[in-house]
């Protein structure tokens, strides 16, 4: 992007793409080797990225395997009507929104706080050690993390219930009770991603001009003053960008962890659009209905992204694009 026409082969002069087919053709001929290299990428995106978008038309059809996507019968908005009028819609909407919103609000400040605190540590070795520990969980799979959650919260042998019993209370079956689901989901999310998400803030802190701190020291600023008036304002743009990114993705709740941790006992708070799509579509093979729900979910997610983009632009910030 930075490099200009110097990039072009010396022997072949750059033709400003004029009008007319012949100039397009010349361009293709000139770039034929690059185009050949690009073919696998085109096939991939057409098949596996745009193909599924095209496949969404089954949301308006009654898909069956024999007739395929093209041949199946049109039913219009029937699946959407059934979904909106059915009993699941508001529950799923509420669950997805609340789980996403609470995760955003609770989990967002931790990496920032962690990065700021870590930056204050004077011993480089201690800092490095803690940081290395801190993002270990991000490398563990959802299955392993879920297994840990199940173990630690187990009513028969889990550490958490051992502590509860030690203080003389009744052990609790946390994963079977709806009121605990969100807490478990969100706190394990913080546990898993805090250190990893802090990387970006630490990098932002590292790029702050050190003369700012030196000047502040000379003026007699305390470490709290420097944190409050130098560190945090300097990383504010990064914080804002991350907030837009995360709030735009708020509605996209990964189904993996929910799928591993929920049970029919906690569906009333844990069932979200994506898990519902998985159950209806892949387990019950209601492809069309599930595709309709999935389409609705993507539309909401897109709207959320556009809203957060709009707000950030209005607030004078840098948008995502």
């Amino acid at each position, binding site marked *: 992007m930075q490099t200009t026409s110097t990039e072009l082969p010396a022997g072949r002069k750059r033709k400003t793409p004029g009008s007319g087919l012949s100039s397009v053709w010349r361009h293709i001929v000139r770039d034929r080797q690059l185009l050949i290299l690009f073919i696998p*990428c085109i096939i991939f995106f057409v098949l596996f990225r745009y193909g599924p978008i095209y496949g969404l038309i089954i949301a308006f059809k009654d898909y069956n395997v024999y007739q395929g996507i093209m041949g199946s019968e049109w039913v219009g908005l029937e699946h959407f009507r059934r979904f909106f009028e059915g009993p699941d819609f508001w529950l799923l909407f509420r669950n997805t929104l609340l789980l996403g919103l609470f995760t955003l609000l609770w989990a967002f400040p931790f990496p920032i706080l962690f990065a700021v605190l870590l930056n204050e540590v004077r011993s480089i070795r201690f800092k490095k050690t803690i940081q290395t520990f801190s993002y270990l969980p991000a490398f*563990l799979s959802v*299955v392993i993390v879920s297994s840990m959650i199940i173990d630690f919260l187990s009513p028969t042998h889990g550490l958490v219930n051992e502590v509860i019993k030690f203080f003389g209370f009744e052990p609790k079956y946390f994963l079977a009770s709806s009121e605990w689901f969100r807490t478990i989901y969100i706190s394990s999310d913080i546990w898993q991603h805090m250190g990893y998400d802090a990387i970006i803030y630490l990098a932002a802190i590292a790029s702050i001009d050190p003369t700012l701190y030196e000047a502040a020291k000379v003026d007699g600023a305390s470490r709290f003053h420097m944190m409050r008036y130098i560190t945090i304002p300097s990383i504010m743009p990064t914080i804002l960008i991350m907030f837009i990114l995360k709030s735009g993705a708020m509605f996209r709740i990964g189904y993996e962890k929910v799928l591993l941790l929920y049970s029919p006992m906690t569906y009333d708070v844990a069932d979200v659009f994506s898990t519902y799509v998985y159950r209806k579509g892949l387990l019950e093979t209601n492809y069309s209905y599930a595709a309709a729900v999935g*389409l609705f979910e993507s539309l909401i997610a897109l709207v959320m992204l556009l809203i957060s983009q709009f707000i950030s632009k209005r607030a004078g910030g840098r948008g995502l694009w």
Partner: protein
Amino acid sequence: MVARSALNPRFTFFDLFLVVVLSLIGIVTVYPVLYIVAVSFSDTASIVQNKVFLWPKGFNLDAYRKIIEEPKIPRAYLNTIMYTGLGTFINLLMTAVAAYPLSRPGFFGRKYFMIAIVLTMFLSGGIIPTYLIVQKLHMIDTIWAIVIPNAIWTVELLILKSFYESMSGSLRESALIDGASEYRILFNIVIPLSKPALASIGLFYFMGHWNSFFIPMIYLNDPKMLPLQVVLRDMLFFDTTQQNSLIEQSTITPQAMKNATIFVSMVPVLLIYPFAQKYFAKGIMLGSEKG
């Protein structure tokens, strides 16, 4: 006073607070992993009586012996290695090749290709249509369902593209003057010079394959083909349902077996990640710049 203490760092109350809080965070993040290891090496009696906290109690290797003897877990391990190896290779090859034309300023239709690619970060058909396409291509129950439908991650493609763009064009240019084809320039100059960037995105791909459970779960039905994460997932539900009845018959608790399996599945990750952190940090930075 304040100025002096800031200029000559002394160990203040705030430093103590930092050490305590951050040590706690460190302990909390690492403890569950240590606990898994401790349980996997402990004997049944200690596990059942809840005596294991940090170190193995009644050290033994029965759980490991058991998971090696059972064909299920070594097979799953091999499957995971195969999917991760082939998958990461295809990812890197596809991404390295696809990023090259996109990095060339005058490439035919570059602007439109870029728009089409970036759009897929915000628009997706979702799992159902994707599943139907994979089914249509007869990939269900084959390794291709695991390695092909996600052969290029858009973010990694954009990262590599901007890395190529930041490379000096002079080598490429002189090669072109010498009459080298684009293929030779890509494979003999650009790719060898991009090793750090490829290592960085390769790590993301590697981790993605190694830890993936949802994709193999939906695309593979044959129990012989399942990777470790899916097998592990089936073991999760031992915990509450069958544990107590099984203890009578077997000397090894399902909990020890599960944790032994988790530990062996974590070994490559634990070996790689301390060395990989600089690449990861780089990848995250580049990725976030691109948005």
